[in-house]
């Protein structure tokens, strides 16, 4: 690390190589540090309100509502066993949301960096695979990639399905990370472009995009976590189906 780090190189790290809007390595982690500080200041404030029977602090009330929302989402999509994923989904939601909010007030943000979004996606999909292997076993999990069991020469089709499913799993990372990056970075570029339009008359036209960007911040955090829930549901629902099936058989036998 031979270069000298300044606030300008860190915070104003926009326009890296090739004109991309992502931050430098150091810049990304400075912004990540800002996100972590904001998040923990908020959570520390909210934590003070946990002692009361009725949450009176607005920060605690917000996080409570978020918790209940995430609980409804996970239980609704994954099922009753989805409660155990609430901490991960809620942490993901908060990190993505605060990162998106940072992008409203700073030149860039962690979620405006494809590398960071790819890290989020890899963790999300990696966790999904881990849960799938825990639920179905390693062989069982990967055998699902091959589709229904086919015999004879049709094994080739199973092989093709396996390869396609494998590519599909890899593409989930790409779609998750690119979607988030495109929305946040696209919002940035739109604000910059509109500000340039109004630069002649000294009107920051891009400012008027803030409500839309705020909505984008919420929606993108929601979409990322929602898709994570769906992916978890896809790899763990066989377990419940099997249970229900066996329960049904038992009921029928009785």
């Amino acid at each position, binding site marked *: *690390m031979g270069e000298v780090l300044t606030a300008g190189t860190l915070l104003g790290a926009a326009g*890296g*190589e*090739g*004109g*991309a*809007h*992502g931050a430098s*390595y150091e810049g*990304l*982690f400075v912004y*990540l540090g800002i996100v*972590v500080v904001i*998040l*923990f200041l908020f*959570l520390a404030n*909210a*934590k003070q309100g*946990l002692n009361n*029977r009725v*949450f009176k602090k607005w920060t*605690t009330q917000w*996080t*409570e509502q978020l*918790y*209940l929302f995430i609980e409804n989402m996970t239980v609704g999509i994954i099922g009753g066993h989805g409660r*155990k*994923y*609430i*901490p*991960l989904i*809620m*942490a*993901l939601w*908060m*990190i993505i949301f605060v990162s998106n909010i940072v992008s409203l007030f700073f030149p860039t943000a*962690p979620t405006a*960096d*494809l*590398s*960071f979004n*790819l*890290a*989020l996606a*890899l*963790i999300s999909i990696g*966790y999904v695979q*881990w849960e799938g292997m825990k639920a179905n076993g390693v062989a069982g999990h990967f055998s699902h990639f091959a589709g229904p069991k086919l015999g004879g020469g049709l094994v080739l089709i199973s092989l093709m399905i396996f390869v396609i499913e494998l590519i599909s799993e890899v593409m989930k990372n790409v779609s998750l990370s690119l979607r988030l990056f495109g929305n946040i970075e696209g919002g940035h570029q739109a604000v910059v472009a509109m500000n340039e339009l109004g630069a002649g008359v000294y009107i920051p036209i891009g400012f008027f995009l803030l409500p839309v960007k705020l909505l984008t911040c919420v929606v993108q955090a929601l979409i990322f976590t929602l898709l994570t829930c769906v992916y978890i549901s896809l790899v763990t629902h066989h377990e419940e189906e099997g249970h229900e099936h066996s329960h049904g058989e038992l009921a029928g036998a009785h």
Partner: protein
Amino acid sequence: MANQKSSSGLPFPVILVIGIVMMAGGFYVSKNVHIDFLTKLAEQGISLDPGKTISAIGVLLILFPVIRSFYIGPLGDAISGRTNELERTFTEAESLRSEMTQMRSDYERRLVETESAAREQIQSEIRKAQELRGQLEADARARADEYLHKAQADIENEKNRVINDLRIHVVDLTLGATEKILGENVDSDRNRKLIAEFIDKVEVPG
């Protein structure tokens, strides 16, 4: 937090070590590894640095359990504790309500029983009073009859006594008058008897 397990089931110190190694590895990759494909991608406006990705994964691996144990866990505990407390309160309220309903029905049953007992007691007392009244009336009537008979007997006796006295007096007067007329004593038992028999014959029935 050291003893806590993350969502993946690994203990936190292991995750911490993995995270730190990934951060260091990511830093190394970012500074020393250059891939032509990524350079071309960056030239087209999409900057992707695998070093940043690896380091970010390391940071996030540490961050998730920290956030979980710092806030999400206590929040979940507080919410579930409050929910349990509310459920317990509702259960207690329901139990108290059923107990109150039971007490109310007991009270109403006892009230009905008390009213019935009071009614029976009142009827019994009324019957006793009526019997007593009849008995008193009969006693009074008997005593009145007794007094009446006694009074009638007294009157009869008194009347007889007065009649005898009157008869004696009339005989005396008659004899006195006869002596005056005849100038001699006619007072003898035989004359007195004759006069008394005469008076009895002329006596007007009473």
